[in-house]
């Protein structure tokens, strides 16, 4: 089975339980189990080759330019972890089937579980670290869903949030670390990175990368000082705790440290950071666990402690320690998952997990008692169980370790951790199962059905078997995984008896001391409970609260809803960044030959300046003066198309403003005070100065690189079939842009129409109906001279429009300009003869015109597909008709027709919408051609 399929199976399967739950809980559980079992089977088929030392790879190209590929590989370490995830997953699915009550939605639970499983398998099989990061974040997200599964419990929601915050923050740090690592190693493939140890460790960025990556690993694996989220995540249903918080997710951090071990370990930084953190976590976790009265909290802190132990072993950086770490990962997964499940059973049967209310369960729940006792003894490290084997080996490693020049300190602290571990493990047995039977359990407990204890029993069987026969049971797996961690072929030797080694004495001391500590537990507990300790949850909440306050204060300050303020901030910061960028860069300016200043230029310039100043001073409608000067500038500076467009747009804009200004207040009172105006003037002045200097600098230097304009000029005729390069760019080279732009134009017109309709159906309607014009109306609204002239002009104007359209491909013109000219011709009729008269005579719907235009342009583009070319590829040919000269037809012409129609439709719809408002406000409507009937007047005179 392809590795990608093994990863994908749980994700695909996640859909099934939600669907199959309608057929019953057993079916849903079976389906979920089948999905996991299939993935496990696929993994098992690769196992022989991997154990032989092969590495299985799968690669699918995704974004090769970014170095991001879907690339997986399976070696010994991946096999170990994927096996744990899928194997224990299978047991959890069985256990959860019987654990969840009838009220819990089981389909959702299994779906979340499979999502999580897929993400975990993805992490351990990823070869690409970017891909790994994606799966890493997915585990944070899916575990959030699982921890918060009981949505009605506030602790569940809080625990889920805390877990997501802490692991999510760590994940962010890790993204940065991984990117740095990838940069140093020159590749994002793990298989390459692990070979670059020398380059990575010599890099000045080694320490930052290490710190950031460790931050991710430590948060995920609940290492001190980030250990606090794990106990709060215990609000999750017990199957989740057993799965995520003992066997899989919290081991993701360990996995990554093991994975990157060849690249990062072996330096003093690695040793002091990782080994020390691990050691502190180990002792602190064990100490807190000893005094927890909640069964799951006790197990949670013991997990923290054991994760610390494994971290510490990885931190030592020796091959022997790495072997022990791998071995302990296996052992811990077996006994801790079993213990969590027994805690769940006790909770399920006795309806409490409070150790103070338990005790004496030995006779009531004999099966659970046996399972829990064997698993606890293994956790305590009692021979011959598997926990003993790895703890003995750990102490052996610790005894050899010199920390900061002190040969005994490390071993001593590690032994203290082991001692406390013995104490809380014994406590789990003694305080829960031994002692007299109590009369006051919340519910009288008894052993659950086989379905519920089958999974922990199987794991405990493994505990015993590995303990008794470590070499045949696990040596092959430890060898394969440790070889993958160290990249050197490893051969582990696991035995019960090593002779009278220091480790043996330390181990004996730990067991004896642990038993002694437990004997005095009641006294110690009093001391512990009266001592002042920092409460992690309170600190965390205070931090989150503080961050939220800072964020909301910042947001309130920046987003106070004042538009003018946003614009001022935007203008000021854009100018600031511009200045900063300009002063930071080096400019290679090649001066060019400047164009001379003529008297006409000066006159145009002066008009713009005077008009702008007049607008500022008196708020006069002198915008069109500026527009006309801009048109003149365009035509002077070799841009005839732009001049034509600008001048026709000026006309429609003037009409638009006249229609709208009729309704807006005629006076614009001065709103802002002197200080405000001064501030705005400074901001605006700086912006203007910046823009002016920038364009001056641009215009007075040559291009550093060849522009693509040369291509457009040379290929306009051969490829586009037109000599007007601007038009060919619009309808051919950059046709896709133009297509988008006419769509935007159409949308803008429709927005105006929709706004009008909303206005006319809202409260504004009454206001409009009661509208009193505040200025005197013209007596003759439709002067005869204007009416006659515009009607005479209409056919000519339309002809000009068509002419401009037709010649557009080769001479200045084209769809945009032609559309504007035709729109002006039509608007003239509205203005001269009145809205109703014109409307009655025009049969075309403007909405339809916009739609037809966009459709025509789109269909022209699609036509290229039939030619086997990409969208909007144009074609042209020369044709001959009788009586006419040879002429050229290009598909770009059809596209330009679309532009033409859309422009007419959009402009007309916008203006018509505004004039509807005017009519509603009491404009009298005439359907006759003139207000005054000239013929009637004549007859009157004649009479």
């Amino acid at each position, binding site marked *: 089975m392809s590795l990608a399929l093994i990863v994908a199976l749980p994700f695909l399967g996640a859909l099934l339980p939600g669907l199959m739950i309608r057929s019953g809980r057993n079916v849903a559980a079976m389906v979920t189990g089948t999905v996991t079992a299939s993935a496990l089977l696929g993994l098992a088929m690769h196992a022989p080759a991997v154990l032989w030392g092969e590495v299985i790879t799968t690669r699918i190209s995704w974004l090769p330019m970014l170095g991001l590929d879907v690339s997986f590989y399976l070696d010994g370490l991946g096999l170990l972890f994927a096996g744990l995830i899928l194997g224990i997953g299978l047991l959890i699915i069985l256990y959860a089937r019987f654990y969840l009550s009838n009220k819990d939605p089981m389909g959702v639970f299994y779906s979340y579980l499979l999502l999580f499983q897929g993400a975990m398998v993805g992490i351990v099989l990823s070869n690409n670290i970017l891909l790994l990061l994606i799966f890493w974040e997915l585990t944070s997200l899916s575990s959030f869903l699982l921890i918060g599964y009981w949505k009605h419990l506030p602790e569940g929601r809080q625990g889920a949030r805390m877990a997501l915050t802490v692991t999510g923050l760590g994940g962010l740090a890790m993204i940065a670390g991984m990117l740095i690592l990838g940069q140093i190693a020159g590749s994002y493939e793990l298989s390459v990175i692990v070979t670059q140890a020398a380059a990575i460790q010599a890099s000045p960025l080694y320490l930052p990368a290490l710190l950031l990556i460790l931050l991710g690993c430590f948060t995920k694996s609940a290492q001190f000082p980030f250990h606090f989220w794990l106990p709060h995540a215990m609000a999750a249903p017990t199957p989740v705790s057993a799965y995520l918080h003992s066997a899989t997710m919290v081991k993701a951090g360990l996995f990554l440290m093991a994975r990157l071990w060849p690249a990062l370990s072996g330096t003093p930084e690695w040793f002091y950071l990782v080994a020390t953190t691990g050691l502190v976590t180990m002792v602190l976790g064990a100490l807190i666990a000893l005094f927890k009265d909640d069964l799951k909290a006790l197990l949670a802190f013991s997990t923290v402690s054991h994760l610390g132990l494994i971290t510490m072993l990885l931190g030592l950086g020796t091959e022997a320690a790495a072997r022990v770490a791998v071995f302990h990962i296996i052992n811990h997964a077996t006994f801790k998952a079993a213990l969590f499940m027994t805690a769940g059973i006790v909770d399920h049967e006795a309806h409490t997990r409070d150790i103070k209310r338990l005790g004496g369960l030995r006779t009531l729940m004999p099966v659970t008692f046996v399972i829990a006792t064997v698993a606890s003894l293994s956790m305590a490290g009692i021979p011959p169980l598997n926990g003993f084997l790895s703890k003995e080996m750990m102490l052996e490693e610790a005894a050899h370790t010199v920390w900061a020049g002190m040969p005994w300190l490390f071993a001593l602290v590690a032994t203290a951790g082991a001692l406390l571990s013995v104490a809380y493990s014994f406590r789990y047995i003694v305080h829960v199962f031994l002692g007299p039977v109590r009369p006051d359990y919340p519910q009288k407990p008894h052993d659950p059905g086989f379905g519920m204890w089958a999974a922990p029993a199987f794991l405990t069987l493994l505990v015993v078997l590995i303990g008794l026969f470590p070499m045949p049971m696990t040596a092959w797996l430890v060898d394969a995984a440790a070889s993958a961690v160290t990249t050197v072929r490893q051969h582990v030797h696991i035995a019960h008896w090593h002779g009278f080694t220091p480790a043996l004495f330390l181990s004996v001391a730990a067991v004896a001391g642990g038993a002694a500590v437990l004997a005095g537990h009641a006294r110690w507990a009093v001391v512990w409970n009266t001592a002042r300790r920092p409460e992690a949850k309170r600190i965390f909440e205070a931090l989150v609260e503080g961050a939220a306050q800072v964020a909301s204060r910042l947001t309130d300050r920046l987003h106070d809803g004042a538009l003018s303020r946003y614009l001022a901030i935007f203008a000021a910061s854009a100018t600031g960044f511009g200045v900063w960028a300009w002063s930071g860069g080096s400019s290679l300016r090649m001066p060019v030959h400047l*164009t001379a200043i003529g008297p006409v230029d000066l006159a145009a310039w002066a008009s713009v300046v005077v008009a*702008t100043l007049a607008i500022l001073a008196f708020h006069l409608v002198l915008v069109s003066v500026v527009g006309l000067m801009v048109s003149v500038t365009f035509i002077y500076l070799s841009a005839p198309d*732009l001049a034509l467009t600008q001048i026709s747009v000026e006309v429609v804009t003037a009409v638009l403003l006249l229609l709208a200004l009729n309704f*807006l207040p005629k006076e614009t009172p001065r709103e802002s005070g002197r200080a405000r105006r001064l501030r705005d003037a400074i*901001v605006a002045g700086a912006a203007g100065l910046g823009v002016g200097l920038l364009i001056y600098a641009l215009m007075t230097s040559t291009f550093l690189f060849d522009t693509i304009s040369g291509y457009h000029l040379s290929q306009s005729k051969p490829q586009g079939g037109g000599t007007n390069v601007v038009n060919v760019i*619009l309808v051919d080279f950059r046709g896709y842009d133009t297509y988008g732009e006419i769509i935007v134009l159409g949308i803008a017109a429709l927005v105006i129409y929709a706004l009008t309709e*909303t*206005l006319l159906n809202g409260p504004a309607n009454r206001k409009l109906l009661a509208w009193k014009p505040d200025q005197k109306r013209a007596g003759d609204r439709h002067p005869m001279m204007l009416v006659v002239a515009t009607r005479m002009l209409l056919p000519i104007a339309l002809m000009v429009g068509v002419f401009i359209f037709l010649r557009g491909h080769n001479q200045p013109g084209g769809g945009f300009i032609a559309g504007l000219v035709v729109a002006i011709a039509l608007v003239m009729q509205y203005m001269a003869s009145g809205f109703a008269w014109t409307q009655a005579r025009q049969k075309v719907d403007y909405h339809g015109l916009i739609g037809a235009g966009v459709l025509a342009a789109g269909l022209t583009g699609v036509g290229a597909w039939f030619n086997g070319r990409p969208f909007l590829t144009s074609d042209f040919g020369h044709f001959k008709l009788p009586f006419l000269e040879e002429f050229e037809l290009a598909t770009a012409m059809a596209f330009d027709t679309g532009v033409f129609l859309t422009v007419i439709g959009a402009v007309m719809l916008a203006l018509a*919408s505004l004039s509807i408002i005017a009519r509603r406000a009491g404009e009298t409507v005439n359907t006759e051609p003139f207000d005054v009937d000239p013929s009637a007047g004549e007859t009157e005179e004649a009479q």
Partner: protein
Amino acid sequence: MEILLASAVGLLTAAGTYLILRLRTFPVIVGLSLLSYAVNVFIFASGRLTIGHPPIITKGAIEYTDPLPQALVLTAIVISFGMTAVIVMMSLGAFLESGTDRIDTDEPETPEGDAP
């Protein structure tokens, strides 16, 4: 010529920016138009200034002006008309609905800001 064009663009930008910072709709509309001119001319001028060499392929002509900024600006002119129309319609609608043409209405009302 360059200095004239640059100073005109700078002036239009400054005037446009100042006007869009006002608190009534009319100056903002006018300011936006001025800014549109400034931006369009800016983009156009980034192709450098050329006199008498329009980008129409003709026999014998060797030099042409840069056609690409012109194509960009041509659509920009039409789109800015569409945007001006939308803004005008929005301010008209806001005025008719709320009875005031003030921009940031959550600031304290001044007496002359009342509806006519």
